[in-house]
């Protein structure tokens, strides 16, 4: 019974939240890694692309709701997602046309493009605040729980409750589907193959007749799709606040770099690694330990390695360790 309680507590406070968070990070990191692999620069504007895209999705969600449309037990935001992605992709393509293309033509060094992307980040940051505001917005509707903590307690008779939010399940399912689709696209379709070819060797790809502008455009569209999906899932699961997406930038980059920049598989692994480390390091293990260990060994303190305030420090520490000892990341991406 005690062991069961320990497992349930662990699932409730560590495994389920970290898995959902990891899936959100993985989707974000995939976008970053894709841009890095093909356009060859770290796109600092990714976090704010997420915020802007989620803002659009929220606006479309309100519009759909005002027309009386809903998606049954699923959030209306899922209906609004394609519209949000289309609009965001349009904005991002316009940005590429007006800003990035100029520097690409000049064959600017990656570090210049990074600075340029920071400029884009600040502009998008401001635009997002103008469009949707700075307040906290909750736009999740539909069913809230798959498993409710109190119902679970009543049904099983355990002391610990298990909560599985619908938004967490949606996040995990959507992430799996999106990742499967992306890998199929990159590995099986002609456009996907040309993107990989362009990423591996730009000159050879150009020689074999691949249109660089087309590859760039498709990359931006996919990256903004990933950003909007990741941002919307994060917003549904937690809440939307424009500034929070800016703060997500650090764990997202940590995920991409830990996995190996340019490696899609690495981005996913990195996302989960960062998420589980953040949650694991800041979780107070007292409860689980008390259930599992014999009474004499049970901790008096909270058995918490780091205060929750230092969540982001965990990303930083992992990032530094990886850069020091394995700069190409776990999955042998391009070196930074």
């Amino acid at each position: 019974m005690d062991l069961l309680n320990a497992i349930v507590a662990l699932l409730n406070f560590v495994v389920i939240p970290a898995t959902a968070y990891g899936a959100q990070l993985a989707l974000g990191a995939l976008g970053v890694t894709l841009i890095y692999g093909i356009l060859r620069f770290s796109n600092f504007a990714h976090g704010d692309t997420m915020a802007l895209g989620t803002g659009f999705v929220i606006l479309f969600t309100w519009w759909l709701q005002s027309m009386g449309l809903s998606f049954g037990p699923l959030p209306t935001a899922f209906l609004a997602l394609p519209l949000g992605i289309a609009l965001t992709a349009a904005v991002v393509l316009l940005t590429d046309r007006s800003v990035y293309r100029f520097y690409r033509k000049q064959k600017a060094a990656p570090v210049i493009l990074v600075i340029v992307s920071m400029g884009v980040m600040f502009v998008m940051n401001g635009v997002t605040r103008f469009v949707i505001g700075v307040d906290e917005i909750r736009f999740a509707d539909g069913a809230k729980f798959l498993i409710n903590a109190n119902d679970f307690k009543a049904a099983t008779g355990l002391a610990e409750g298990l909560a599985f939010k619908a938004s967490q399940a949606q996040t995990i399912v959507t992430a799996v589907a999106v990742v499967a689709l992306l890998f199929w696209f990159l590995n099986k379709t002609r456009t996907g193959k040309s993107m990989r070819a362009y990423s591996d060797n730009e000159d050879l790809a150009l020689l074999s007749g691949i249109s660089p502008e087309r590859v760039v455009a498709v990359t931006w569209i996919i990256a903004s799709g990933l950003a909007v999906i990741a941002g919307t899932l994060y917003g549904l699961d937690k809440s939307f606040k424009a500034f929070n997406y800016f703060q997500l930038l650090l764990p997202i980059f940590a995920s991409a770099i830990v996995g190996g920049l340019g490696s899609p598989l690495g981005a996913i692994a990195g996302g989960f690694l960062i998420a589980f480390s953040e949650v694991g390091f800041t979780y107070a293990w007292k409860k689980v330990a008390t259930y599992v260990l014999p009474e004499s060994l049970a901790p008096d303190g909270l058995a918490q390695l780091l205060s929750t305030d230092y969540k982001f420090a965990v990303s930083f520490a992992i990032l530094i360790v990886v850069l020091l000892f394995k700069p190409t990341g776990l999955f042998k991406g391009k070196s930074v």
Partner: protein
Amino acid sequence: MKKLLAATASVALIAGAASAEDIKIGVVLGFTGPLESITPAMGAAAELAMKEVTDSGKLLGGSTVTSVRGDSTCVDAAAATAAAERVVTTDKVSAIMGADCSGVTGAILSNVAVPNGIVMVSPSATSPALSTAEDNGLFFRTAPSDARQGEVVTDILKEKGIGSIAISYTNNDYGKGLAESIQRNFEAAGGTVTISAAHEDGKADYSAEVGALASAGGDVLVVAGYVDQGGSGVVRAAIDTGAFSTFYFPDGMVGQKLNENFGAELNGSYGAYPGTDSQGAAMFKDLAGAAGIDGTSAFAPESYDAAALIMLAMAAAGSSNSADFSGKIMDLANAPGEKIYPGELAKALDLIAAGTEIDYEGASAVELVGPGESKGNYQEILFADGVYSTVNYR
């Protein structure tokens, strides 16, 4: 010789009382900054009391009282000190009604009020640290210290038979002070505080914070935060994960937003926030309403009372000099004596002139304790059917 002295003294007293003057009182509040939405009503309430006294013509032989406003900014101690310095040295105010936030109040007190010997009455600073500040008997407040709130919290929890609590507080002076006060009182009463952890405002997700709180356990989660900020986030995560089902809400958390955000999910939870059922509150609401001020706005009643106490103390001392009247404030605010409510300042001045003791109740049922701070009246709330309602006054 004795007779002569007594005669000269009484002549001097009469002469002093008879010479009408223009008394200035500084109203130093955060007219810009985080409290700018409530300070206009606070300032207007204080000026309402000044107008009432001026119109009566009964203070110190028909003296008039005018207000001099200064901006405390609520957060910038240097700017607040400069503003207070200006009203004291340039405008020559006799007393300061203010400041509002605890941090700037302490700064003005030690940098301006004490060096210049000026009485200062704050309507809204609640930090326990101000109770022990070096004030030479010049500082008073018509707001209760959060130390008092810690006692109220402990009383309520003990009455409900709660043995252990977890505390989550917002990471600033208010949250930290309140959390410490609650912990100290609760532990002194024999209770156990399993954890007292800070949360940062403005985050999207508080499940990690709640994970730590849940691991520590406790019968009730005390959320010493803001309802518009992280406090609601912590409650949300705690309900979603089933970590806690009963909550205690201190003053920063009680608001309409709680009903909107959670509704029936909070049934059975409780809390307390400042408030009184005394007739003064209702009278002040009408009085302020007639003057176009929202009398229920936060700390507006306390502001009226702060200004009124300053002027009544001047009348009782027969002088507008801070050194003379600072000692009178405690006597006037507390029993025994005839009770004085808002709108009755003229009557109070008459009674003082006649030598009758008064007990100033005012708009917020003022009773000053300890180093000259409001004893504090709290209304206890309970959630039932998705809304909270006041069940008790203490």
